[in-house]
């Protein structure tokens, strides 16, 4: 770390400014600039989403572009009765379940691998670079390779076997790398302290390491879910006889120009806001309860 000791800063520059001290101080101008940037980013992020939300409420004549035609919930109904839009419902269910399984396995696998890499072991360089290779290998080709192997060994390729493995080969490297970043700030001293107090190895991991690393694990879970839910190229050949959602939508784009895709987007957004709202609300409620309990003591 470059060492600019405080002494070398000219006296003229010593101005007292405090940032993030929690007290009732005025926000510096940088706050407003960054807040505007943040707002702009969120707006840009939701830009295409806005089109999706608005256009999903068209009536039966609707297409995928403006100008909007009519106002109805026709496409939402169409989405759930899946008459003309392929098996979107089935694909959606499979994708969600697969993504959940992948998320759980990724968190566990990345966490364990992170623990492993904390020490140098024989072959750790090879494993590391194999992992990087798995991250960057072109999914199309890898998918064909996996499909070929399954065929050769007489195994049944399906979304919960071959596709699951293909997804994990994609999400685990992401997770492990995030774990690296997270664990690099992890203080071994806490573990030492716990050991000194008599904790077993598993107790240390479960009661010390995991809670401290929880935000990192959450990041891994987030990555794992998003990457798996959207995964396309690796899944193309490994999904077996049933399509996941991205595959189904991609296949549909060959002959469908239907706003029910947009209806799906609107529904998933509503569902995610609901879930987030419940989770955050739950956290707030737990905190309040803890506060009242403490104050009661």
């Amino acid at each position: 770390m470059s060492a600019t000791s405080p002494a070398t800063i000219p006296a003229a520059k010593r101005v007292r400014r405090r940032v993030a001290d929690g007290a009732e101080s005025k926000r510096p101008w940088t706050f407003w600039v960054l807040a505007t940037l943040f707002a702009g980013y969120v707006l840009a992020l939701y830009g295409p989403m806005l089109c999706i939300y608005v256009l999903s409420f068209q009536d039966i004549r609707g297409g995928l572009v403006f100008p909007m035609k009519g106002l109805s919930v026709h496409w939402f109904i169409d989405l759930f009765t899946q008459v003309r839009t392929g098996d979107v419902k089935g694909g959606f269910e499979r994708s969600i379940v697969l993504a959940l399984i992948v998320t759980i396995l990724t968190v566990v696998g990345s966490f364990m691998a992170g623990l492993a890499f904390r020490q140098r072991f024989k072959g750790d360089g090879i494993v590391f670079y194999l992992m990087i290779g798995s991250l960057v290998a072109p999914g199309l080709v890898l998918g064909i390779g996996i499909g070929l192997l399954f065929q050769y060994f007489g195994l049944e390729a399906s979304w919960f076997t071959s596709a699951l493995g293909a997804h994990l080969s994609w999400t685990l490297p992401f997770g492990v790398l995030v774990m690296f970043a997270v664990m690099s700030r992890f203080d071994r001293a806490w573990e030492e302290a716990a050991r000194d107090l008599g904790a077993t190895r598993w107790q240390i991991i479960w009661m010390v390491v995991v809670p401290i690393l929880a935000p990192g694990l959450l990041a891994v879970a987030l990555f794992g879910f998003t990457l798996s839910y959207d995964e396309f190229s690796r899944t193309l050949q490994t999904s077996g006889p049933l399509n996941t959602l991205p595959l189904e939508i991609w296949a549909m784009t060959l002959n469908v120009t239907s706003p029910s895709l947009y209806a799906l987007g609107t529904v998933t957004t509503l569902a995610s806001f609901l879930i987030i709202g419940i989770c955050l609300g739950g956290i707030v409620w737990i905190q309040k309860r803890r506060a009242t309990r403490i104050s009661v003591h």
Partner: protein
Amino acid sequence: MKEKLEASDPTPESKTEATVTDSGVDVSRRAVLKSAAALAGVAGTQAITGFPLIWAQDIKNIELRHVGVSYSVVKAIGDQASKDLGFKVTMQNLDTSAAINRFVTQPNTVDIADVEGWQAKLATKRGVLQGIEVKKIKEFENILPIFTKGEFSGKVVSRQGISPYEAMYISKPDATELHEGVTPWATFLPQVYNADSMGYRPDLIKKEITEWKELINPAYKGKAAILDVPAIGIMDAALCFESAGEIKYANKGNMTKSEIDFTINRLIELKKQGQFRATWTTFDQSVQLMAAGEVIIQSMWSPAVAAVRVKGMPCIYAPVNIKNGKEGYRGWCNGMALMKHLSGKKLDAAYEYLNWYLSGWQGGFVARYGYYSPVPSTAKKFLTANEWDYWYEGKPATAEILDPYGVPMEKPGAKRDGGSFIERVTNISCWNTLMDEAQYMNKRWNDFKAA
């Protein structure tokens, strides 16, 4: 949503419904089995489907997996087949390239493969298909001779590209080379086909388009588009250059290296001049480009033109009949192939399915997309006289025309572009293909993309 049937429905169970839930299929299967047991050979269902169900008990547990592109392998058709046949037919949609890769690398995961003519050639060479015994196919003789004999009313169908006739026959069921000429073994059964040309906005282009060279007309600079599939795009381009008189190809569907070079170099030139607004990848992209007015002329597929019209924009499918030895449509044909691993009862079920497919319900269904059935005589039974006249004969509609799901799309008096289907199909200049120089062609197409 109920389909209109020409024939009468003696039994309520056989009324076709587009919406099918799992329990719905079970109920009608039971009903079908009951009627089969009770009325062997005379039941109403059999009047429509005509399939012997003596071994219905055995086939209950069979599931056939039909895999292919979404405009050919339609879920509604699979549901109807499950209903009529008594065993389960599941449809899986993939795009063309993913499908052929699946057939070749994971053949055991597919039962009925949806293949284009040239893909049938590939799959046969790779040994993943088994020959279809022609005499087991009831309607084989009624399939248009364009496919089965390569000719129509004495005129020979174009052999540029890989025509369905060329790709259809093999000498024995496990042969890996195609056979020139009619044999008792087929690689695939044609199922859906069409003749593609260009679509244009008549309100923005004030003249009638009948020649491919209009696509590269500098007057439409920045408002034209072609599609981003190498083997197809290059043939559309070839049709344009031939139409403009710039070059004469020996075989547009199997170009020599120098012909490929000429075509691609001209394309790169046009791209640099800004002729093309985009090369479209997905179906709805082509629809949007046209409907939004981003392009006013482009290579299009027939249902895309229909979709643009449903949005209220006028769009015409240019009739590019062969004249002066130039022009002509680009034809394609998708068909069903049997995977090699099918045997025993499953193979029998597969033949039942193939026969059902050609028996007319599917033909009537896809007609409303604008696709033709290779057995028009059976499709006719499932279309109203008005629909038949409109879709097949090219006559003006006498009543409203509905799309496959019952949505009105054309008013009375509208005429289908390009005339009758005979007129269109006999004017096919070249068929979708896989060239001998495919690797070179791909490379040069990527040059065009990267230019």
